[in-house]
Every structure is written in structure tokens, then in C-alpha cells.
């Protein structure tokens, strides 16, 4: 059984005037350990897909399961528990809490877990170390560069050792060198077996994915499986 299964996933937004189908009967399976890139033009449904996968947005129809859990059969609070235990989010705008230090931001997902303070701190320090920010723990987000903020966000996504990391345009606001550094970091995590699903429209980083799904008008337009680095190199 696949780690993630979408079947007949549909999401429609109904406005006063008309009805917009953001996703049209999408059916995809994703294996554990995949580094999946979801690409496509604006409005193709990438972000909606990520929101639904993140348990943040209920689909109009269809079913989605992660590790055998039927997500939208869960109640609101259980969905929150699912996000905490299964998911690490890396947002486009980093979304760090401005009044918390790097270390505290990384500890956020642990704030509502009943584990000793010391362990929370150790785990957060370890996560910061993994993203190469061991010396910046006491800095506020405003005192960090864009790349560093992104690393804090990644450390925060890692701290709970979730089975799945969801990343939304993590390189969207970074220069090309920093983007590649960040992608190397994701690549290293994936090499350790971490499943990652990343939404992007940055073609420069497509070579890092081992599967790419291109969406167009809410449907799968292209599904490339295999080390795309090679595909990209081949042309």
C-alpha cells in the first residue's frame, strides 16, 4: 500500500457567480521516501493540493489517506494531532513567530507535547544543528537572513521527526545560491529516507526531485517518475 493515496480528489470553490474547480478528481499514489515536486502554473491547484494533504482544507469529494489514516474522517482536534505527529510544514514566507528566538520557533511543535523541557530543548538544538544553525539559537527571526530563516523553518519541520514534510515554495524568496543550499539540505534529508512533497514553480530545482507531478487546471498534466536530475541532464 502506498504511503499517501489520493483518490478522486476534487476541490471546488463556489462563489456567488460561478464555481471554480481547483482540483478535478485527482488520483495519485506516493511511496514512502519519495522527494516529490508538484509543479505547474499559478492557479493549477498546487497549493490547494498541499493544503488538503496538510489537513488544513477539506476536499469537496474524494479521499486522501496518509499511512493508512483517512484524513478527513478525523475530527478537527484529531486533524490537529495528525498534523503535529505526521507533518512538518515549511512555508513559503517562512512563517516564523517574530517574538520567539530561533530555538523557540523550532520548539513550537513540541510546546503542546508532554515531554520534559530538557528533551524539547535538546531535540530543537539537534534540529538546528542539522540545518547548520547551531550558533544562531538565541536570535530573533528579524536578526536572521532569508536563508537562515528558511533553515529555522526547516528545523521546525524536522524537530518532531515527522514521516512527511510538506514544503510550499521554500526557495520562492531566496537567491539562487541560497536556493541550492536549501535544496541540498532537503536532498540530504530525503537521502536519509524522509518523504518530502514540495510545491514549486522554480524549474531550476527540478533536478532534486525523484518524481515530478505537473498540474494544469486542477488535473495531472504530467507525472515523471525516476531521478529527474538525469532526465534534466538528458535534456
Amino acid at each position, binding site marked *: 500500500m502506498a504511503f499517501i493515496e489520493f483518490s478522486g480528489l476534487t476541490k471546488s470553490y463556489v462563489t456567488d457567480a460561478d464555481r471554480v474547480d481547483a482540483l478535478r478528481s485527482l488520483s495519485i499514489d506516493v511511496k514512502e521516501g519519495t522527494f516529490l515536486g508538484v509543479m505547474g502554473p499559478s492557479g493549477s491547484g498546487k*497549493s490547494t493540493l*498541499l*493544503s488538503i494533504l*496538510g489537513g*488544513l*482544507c477539506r476536499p469537496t469529494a474524494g479521499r486522501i489517506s496518509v499511512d493508512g489514516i483517512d484524513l478527513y474522517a478525523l475530527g*478537527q*482536534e484529531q486533524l*490537529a*494531532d*495528525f*498534523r*503535529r*505527529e505526521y*507533518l512538518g*510544514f515549511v*512555508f*513559503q*514566507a517562512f*512563517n516564523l*513567530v*517574530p*517574538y*520567539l528566538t530561533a530555538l*523557540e520557533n523550532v*520548539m*513550537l*511543535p*513540541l*510546546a*503542546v507535547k508532554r515531554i520534559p*523541557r530538557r528533551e*524539547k*530543548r535538546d531535540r*530543537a538544538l539537534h534540529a538546528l544543528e542539522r540545518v547548520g544553525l547551531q550558533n544562531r539559537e538565541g536570535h530573533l527571526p528579524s536578526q536572521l537572513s532569508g536563508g537562515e530563516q528558511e533553515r529555522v523553518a526547516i528545523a*521546525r519541520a524536522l524537530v*518532531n521527526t515527522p514521516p512527511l514534510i510538506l514544503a*510550499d515554495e521554500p526557495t520562492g524568496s531566496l537567491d539562487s545560491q541560497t536556493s541550492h543550499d536549501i535544496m541540498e539540505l532537503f536532498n540530504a534529508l530525503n537521502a536519509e529516507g524522509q518523504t518530502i512533497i514540495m510545491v514549486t514553480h522554480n524549474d531550476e530545482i527540478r533536478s532534486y526531485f525523484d518524481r515530478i507531478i505537473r498540474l494544469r487546471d486542477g488535473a495531472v498534466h504530467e507525472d515523471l517518475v525516476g531521478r529527474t536530475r538525469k532526465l534534466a541532464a538528458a535534456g
Partner: protein
Amino acid sequence: MTLESIVLSNLKRRKGRMIFLILGLLLGVATVVTLISLSSALTADVQHKMDNYGANILITPRSDQLSLNYGGIDLGGVSVDSRSLKQADLQKIGTIPDHRNIAAVAPKVLGTVRVGDQRVMLMGVDIDKEFHLKKWWSIEGLPVREEAELVAGRSAAEALGLRVGDTVAVENRTFRVSGLLQKTGSQDDHLLIVSLPVAQDILNKQGTVTLVEVAALCADCPVTDMVDQISAVLPDVDVSAIQQVVKTRMHAFEQFQQFSLAIATVVVLVGALVVFVTMMGAVKERTREIGIFRALGFRRSHIIRLVLLEAALLSVVAGLCGYLSGMGVSRLVLPVLTEGHVALYWDPLLAVAAVALALSVGALASFYPALHASRLDPTEALRAL
């Protein structure tokens, strides 16, 4: 990192909003504390004055026809000879269960005497007790100290042309006027006051008294109970509580308290409104942040707890500061209201109540904002996702 530490970090950062909320609640609590501490200090003041105010129980001969007038005794036209109490019986008053609450038992004998060609009311009193009991008596000269002295009421003195130091013949005895009573506006103005045994002699009422005033300490004693107890030991007399003055004063006081309560309620409501608006504003300002928390796996209940914890923490601070400010204001105002002789009582119970009030108002006013925060749609809150 816990919910509590998130709250503390947030408060450290948003000091301005925090101070605004604290001030709103603080004003409410301070007003309530001021009014409560003032009214309890003033109640104590009233009670203190009542204790010093003389008699509050009157013992008179049992009668079914007399209309009593001076302090309850009307002497006009009715013979009082047959209406008297045995002085020896008065010792029984000291045997009642609540005898510790009796501050003074002041017997007196009344009757009319002839001075020159005028008829005047003569009152024999227990010198020490009477002058102690009637603190409002202001005497020009000195009170009665020995048998051959008298103090004249202002009207009696004017009618008889008496001055301090004069001698005057009453019936067949001569007295020196040791003092004149300043005008009291009561029937005391018409009296000649001498010592009890002398008056009993003159009036030929040895061993009897006309009425007895009893001063009971009023702060915690049920006067009506004491009336019953005295009636039990002196079955043949009328014992009544003088509650008129107390009641009037207490009534005025109750009105003050009700007025205070109304003002306090309004101020607390305004405080609650300030908390509500501030917390709603804070939640709106933190929409994105709440979205992040939700996306990271905070439950709705965690968000509610975050908001309520913050409100609770600020409320406790506001409660404590409100208590201190309220007591400070009371301390400034009290001397003006009571001529400076009432001490302010630092009641720990009031401090606890102030904090509890702030906490409940803060929590209640923040409940809807907390609920609203927990209902925020994380995707709406994050937008970017």
C-alpha cells in the same frame, strides 16, 4: 517551550497592548476596592461613633398609660411618683449573658423642683457615668464633681439667670453652678443636673430611679438580644432598644453603599469592554500567528488556552495593582471623609477578592475572543499556503 512560555514571550513583545488591557481592568478593580474599603472603614467609623454615642437601650418603668418623653419620659401633667425602678435591681443587669457588651449603665432620677418662683426639671445622675456617656455634652465650666454642685442646661440657666460660679437655692438646699451645658437642642437644655443621691433626697425618691440608659457596644452585639436578656432579669420594667438614630444613619449608609455598588458595576463593565476590545484586537493582529500554530498541530483547545492564559496572567497583575491603587486612593480620601480618626484596614480577603474579580472579568471578557481565535481557518490565516 510550553504554552505558558509562548504567552510570556508574546507579552514581553507586545507591552503596549498589555499595559492598555491592565489599565482597563485595574481601573475597575481599583474603584471597587476603593468603594469597599471606604464603606467598610466608614461602617467601622459609624459603629465607633455609635459606641461613643451613648445609650442604645432604655429601661423605664412599666406603664400602660404614660407617654414617655425625655429620652422617653414625659413628665408633664402625670405624676411620676409611682413610676420608678428600684436602684438595687439594677445590679441584675450585670448578670445577663452578654454583660461584657455593656459599656455603661446610667441610672437617673427625674422630677420637678421649685427654684425661686420657677418650676424646673431636676435630673439626678450617676456623675461619672453620665458625663462619660454623653460625649456630645459640651460644658462651659466643669461637670458636677460633688454633692453641692450642679450643671444647668442652657435654657434653664437663661430662665434662672445662672452663670458659672453662681450659687442657687433648689428647694431647701444650696448649690454652686459648676458648669453650664452648651445648647444641645434637646430636652437636656431645660434641666438642672445634680448627683443621683442628692436628687433622690430632694425628690424624696431614695433608692429608686426613673429611668436607666444602657450603653451596649454595638459593633457585634445584637442589641435586641440584650433587650430580651435585660427584660428577663427585670421582668417588671420596659426595656427598649433605641434604634432610631442607628437606623437613620445605617439607612443613609446603605444608600451610599448601593450608589457605590452601581458605580462599581459600571466601571467594571467598562473594564470588561476594554478587555474584550483589546483581546479581539490582539486576536486579529495575531491571525497569521494563530494559523501557524494550527498548522503546526495546535488543537483548537490549545489556542483557547493560549488566549485565556494571557488574559488570566494580565488579569492577576491588574487585580493586584488594582487592589494596591484602590487602597492608596482610600488612604488619601478617608481622612477627608472621617476627620482622620479611622484607620484603613488592609484586608487580605479583599486582596484575594480583587484578584478573583479581575480574573473572572478578564477571563469572561476574553472568552469570545479566545473562541474566535480557535475558529480561525488555518488556511485563511496563512494565506500563503
